[in-house]
């Protein structure tokens, strides 16, 4: 049984200071560009207080609640993969000399980041990307360094959005593992669950008292309440086989008429990992960087073979995305690639909702 502590809201800065003094750069929710996004903060004043978000398919609006609460919103457009699997990474540099080429691998030691405000679905997403980059045949050591350097402060969701369906994917809303510390925002302070020895080392000097039974109960009821509020569902029973049995369903075409193949869903998805390496040469081609960046199965060029894409229309690309995420991911990594965070639904510029599409695809053709 994990250790539970409590601190008052006015002690929040102390906690933050402790993180910073331990050498971490704290990345937390902030408000920018009319949304809640993750960015480095210097104090709790940089965090949104008294805000919530309204989310619908293809729709996101920030709303001021006027209360003093810090975490009354769901996940926004950013995910932590931006820090662990950055959108643009230098891989290596080649330098030409008289004798030939020197290849220098770029080593990323990993910034000591403390991620503050990681939600349950996001913990699940991190675990999924670990499988991809750390547990396959090859290890991405730069990812490993970044992962090892990070400290995770999770937060249990109190106010899910209309696009959340973590309950269907069995990933939330309550954080179960994968964190150093998990917070629950109570009416007057925070319940703090210690999830690792690193977490324990961090909070011990603060001397926060153990949580009371009442505080634990309040925390439980917050999570229960959040669970009840989640209305969106996806039927995952035997979903892998149900989807793989529908590869020629006419509904793929129906989605393709709406889908813009614009890549937004894959970019915002916290588990999508496809990438692309490009050459960045100088004019003389004597110094050449190789740069890896996020790519997407929605880009026609992604599947180019002998000049033409293997998946040469939106129908096949949407099918690749959805079946990979929800079906073949199981074969490759032993679980679903979807954590139910709802980002792809919110940030699709034409509001395509995968839970709705899955339901339609699993209907037998008339």
């Amino acid at each position, binding site marked *: 049984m994990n250790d539970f502590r409590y601190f008052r809201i006015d002690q929040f800065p102390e906690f933050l200071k402790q993180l910073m003094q331990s050498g971490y750069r704290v990345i937390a929710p902030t408000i920018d560009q009319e949304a809640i996004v993750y960015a480095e903060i210097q104090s709790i004043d940089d965090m949104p207080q008294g805000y919530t978000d309204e989310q619908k398919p293809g729709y996101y609006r920030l709303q001021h609640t006027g209360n003093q609460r810090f975490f009354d919103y769901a996940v926004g457009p950013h995910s932590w993969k931006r820090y662990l699997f950055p959108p643009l990474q230098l*891989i*290596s540099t*080649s330098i*030409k000399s008289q*004798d*030939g*080429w*020197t*290849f220098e*691998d770029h*080593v990323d030691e990993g910034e000591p980041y403390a991620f503050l405000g990681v939600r349950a679905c996001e913990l699940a997403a991190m675990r999924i990307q670990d499988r*991809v*980059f750390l547990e*396959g*045949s*090859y*290890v*991405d*050591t730069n990812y490993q360094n970044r992962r090892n350097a990070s400290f995770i402060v999770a937060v249990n969701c109190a106010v899910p959005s209309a696009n959340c369906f973590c309950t269907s994917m069995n990933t939330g809303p309550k954080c179960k593992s994968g964190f150093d510390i998990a917070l629950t925002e109570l009416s007057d302070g925070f319940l703090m669950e210690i999830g690792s020895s690193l977490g324990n080392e961090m909070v011990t000097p603060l001397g926060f008292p153990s949580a009371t039974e009442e505080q634990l109960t309040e925390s439980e009821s917050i999570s229960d309440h959040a669970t009840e509020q989640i209305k969106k569902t996806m039927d995952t029973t035997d979903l892998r086989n149900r989807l*793989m049995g529908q*590869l*020629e369903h006419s509904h793929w075409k129906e989605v393709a008429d709406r889908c813009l193949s614009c890549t937004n869903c894959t970019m915002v998805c916290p588990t999508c*990992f*496809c*990438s*692309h*390496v*490009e*050459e960045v*040469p100088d004019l003389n*081609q004597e110094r*050449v960087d*190789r740069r890896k960046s996020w*790519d997407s*199965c929605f880009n026609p060029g*992604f*599947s*180019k*073979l*002998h000049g033409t894409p*293997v*998946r*040469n*229309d939106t*129908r*096949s690309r949407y*099918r*690749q995305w959805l079946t*990979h995420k929800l079906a*073949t991911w199981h*074969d*490759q990594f032993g679980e679903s690639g979807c954590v139910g965070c709802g980002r792809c639904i919110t940030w699709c510029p034409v509001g395509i909702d995968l839970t709705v599409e899955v339901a339609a695809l699993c209907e037998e053709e008339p």
Partner: protein
Amino acid sequence: MTQGTSAPTANSAWKLHEIRLVSRKKEIPIVETFEFEFVDSAVGQQYVARAGQFNMLYIPGYGEAAISTSGVSQNTGNIVHTIRQAGNVTNAIFRLELGQTLGCRGPYGNGWPLRDFEEKHLILIGGGIGMAPLRSVIESLRQSGWSFSKVTILIGGRSPDSLLYSAEYDQWRSSGFEVLTTVDHSTTGWQGNIGVVPSLLDRIELSDPNAAIVMCCGPEVMMNYSALAAIERGIPEDQIFFSLERHMNCAIGHCGRCQLGSYFLCTNGPVFRYNQVKELMKIPEL
């Protein structure tokens, strides 16, 4: 299917080694066989590739291309590749002069599970540049002490002058291998078969289909028809092997590019049993 066994070492994912072009030989139009040595000979000594595996060859400024090993190089530690000029990287390789260097990482992929095939009748079917990974099989067979009941090599090309490795057929035959060729279009002087490669399957002697192994590499249509022809002759589906191609960017299962259904071609393949992929290959644009 066996997983790629080349031990993943820390930091190895993108680690490039410098290799030097030591010789090149023209095979057929726009295809040449290149031999490279490792600039750091210690790396070369440790380098072991099995038939059917591939390397990522890298020319800075142009990028990388997946290229199968087309020969076995145990004596010199050199690597041998037969390359068809297709685009930026392969064109740049063709512009290399002897002594110039480039980057290489690998070997990647699973390769043909040759050890499982001992005492079997091996039927190798290659079309076009698809003969490259089969040539490394032939070389292994000729050099290894393994015993096989019979080896049959079926080769197809567009025309007689596009039959890859034709100068070596006599050597192969002298090793006891049966070699049959066919072309889509004949030219004057051609005495051999005309038609598609799968049709050659009908002509070979097959004492026990259950002891036959088909190894196939070439255009997807050609492989599919070869499989059907083999099944027709009673060869079980799980004894037919394909080497598949998709564009590869990382070769280590991280970039997502070479997926086919549940498989990453780079780490789960490129060699697959026919029954693993046949349903997937039926679905267009999967």
